[in-house]
């Protein structure tokens, strides 16, 4: 059809469709891409042009501490989330359809609840006079309330809770594609339940594991709400550090440098992920 048409006619035919794309494209360029580019620009130009902001990655101990704290918490979160998510995805992939529906509901429901509401709920559960401490003291198990919040433990609980559904979905997608006869075949050949799992099932889910880890890690890196509330300002992760630089200390150079580094790290991770697995298949092809 269009193959034989001259270029001008092709352009004429596609012009109306480009007009449909235009409003969203203009909004996105003017009010998203442009301000984002400006963040990168500012990081190189304020307070003076050059790489002085980026030098702080090497020279400033405070900046390094924030990055190390962030990476530590993100790695812990990713590992715990993957273990929990794997168990759920495994049970999900072998459950009968009726049970599966309930499990899906439980996994997807938290996704519909505001991050802020969930962080607030964790505050009520974990704080000094929270539900857990009250219950433990009431039962006479402890005398002093445990410190469950406003530290890295609290942040990890809140983040793991937020991330689990995002890990389950790609893991489940990779398990669903496994031929259900493989594990029984291995068992039939004399493998124990654990051996069959370790040498047959687990290697086949490797793409799902990689995709889930990278996704969870990326989401964790730039996470703001949960660490800010459950960390109580005592454990600074990068997103909250950026907010402090801009809104409280008005140090645009440092703030935008940290934001740019965060963005670059995420883009690099996504790029690496796309080289290893087909991103479109990560969530089971939509």
């Amino acid at each position, binding site marked *: 059809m269009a193959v034989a048409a001259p270029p001008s006619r092709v352009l004429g035919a*596609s012009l109306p*469709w480009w*007009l*449909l*794309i235009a*409003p969203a*494209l203009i*909004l*996105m360029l003017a*009010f*998203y891409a442009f*301000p*984002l*580019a400006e*963040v990168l620009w500012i990081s190189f130009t304020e307070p003076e042009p050059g790489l002085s902001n980026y030098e702080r990655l090497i020279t400033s101990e405070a900046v390094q501490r924030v990055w190390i704290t962030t990476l530590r918490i993100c790695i812990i979160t990713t590992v715990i989330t993957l273990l*929990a998510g794997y*168990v*759920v995805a*495994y*049970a999900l992939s*072998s*459950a009968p359809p009726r049970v599966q529906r309930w499990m899906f509901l*439980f*996994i997807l*429901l*938290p996704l519909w*609840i*505001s*991050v*802020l*509401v*969930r962080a*607030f*709920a*964790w505050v*009520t*559960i974990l704080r000094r*006079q929270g539900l857990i401490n009250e219950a433990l003291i009431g039962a006479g198990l402890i005398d002093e309330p445990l410190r469950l919040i406003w530290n890295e433990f609290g942040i990890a609980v809140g983040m793991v*809770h937020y991330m*689990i*559904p995002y890990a389950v979905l790609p893991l489940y997608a990779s398990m669903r594609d496994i031929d259900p006869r493989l*594990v*029984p075949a291995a068992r039939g050949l004399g493998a124990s*339940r654990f051996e069959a799992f370790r040498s047959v099932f687990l290697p086949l889910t490797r793409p799902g594991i990689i995709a889930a880890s990278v996704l969870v890690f990326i989401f964790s*890196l*730039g996470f703001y*709400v949960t660490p800010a*509330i459950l960390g109580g300002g005592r454990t600074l992760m990068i*997103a909250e550090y950026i*907010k402090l630089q*801009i*809104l409280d200390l008005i140090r*645009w150079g440092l703030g*935008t440098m940290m*934001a*740019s580094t*965060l963005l670059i790290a*995420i883009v690099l991770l*996504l790029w690496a992920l796309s080289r290893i697995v087909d991103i479109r298949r990560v969530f089971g092809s*939509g």
Partner: protein
Amino acid sequence: MDRSAQAGPVANVLAWSVLLFLLLPITVIFPISLTDQRFLSLPYEALSLQHYVAFFTSERWLSSTWQSLVIALASTILAVSTGTLCAIGCWKLSTRATEIVRVLMLLPIIVPSIVYALGIYRLWIRLDLLDTYTGVILVHGVTGIPYVVITVTTALANFDPRLEQAARGMGASLRQTLAWVILPRIMPGIVSGAIFAFIHSWDEAVLILFIASRALFTLPRRMWDGINENLDPVMAVAACVMILASVLMLAVDLWARRKRSE
């Protein structure tokens, strides 16, 4: 059939513990909102609606709820109208250029809000849009577009492109083809996109810290301040109001799908 591929009892117990952990925060909020105490706790002696009364008679909470609603509705309209048309245009053309457009449209769910917040804060200072409805609606609308593009693109994948060609071939204008042929067929995708976009704005808590300060105080913003300043049980009521709005939307989505498939 041999079911030895099924998860063992240990795996099942672990999986269900994780699922209960997922549900825990949602399930404690409702009883806490009904507490008879003056502080955040489970009800001691009786259930009480006192904090609901406090919420629904508080001018501050009500005005926040109202502002959140107005902003969410307006930004949803913006995101749905532009996002749907964009997805249709990209679907029809399917060239390398439109692939780039699609990736661009997904940026807001890849880039952390905190990074974008700096840029838009700076731009709004310059354009004098800080703390205005226009400013917040534009920001929530633009960041809501990805959800619409994703759901509409998915819906279009099941739409037979020959229907569009047939309509055009029989002399229908682009406008007529859109209104009578394409849009009705992808309506479930549009509705889902609208619901995602609405909830995105309704729950948004990071950008609002930067682009609004006094005049605009959305529900998440007021909760944020409350958590950091004084934890009183009215907050649990506000949390329930936010959850109920999301669940209501989810129910509308399910209902629309069911109605569609009847």
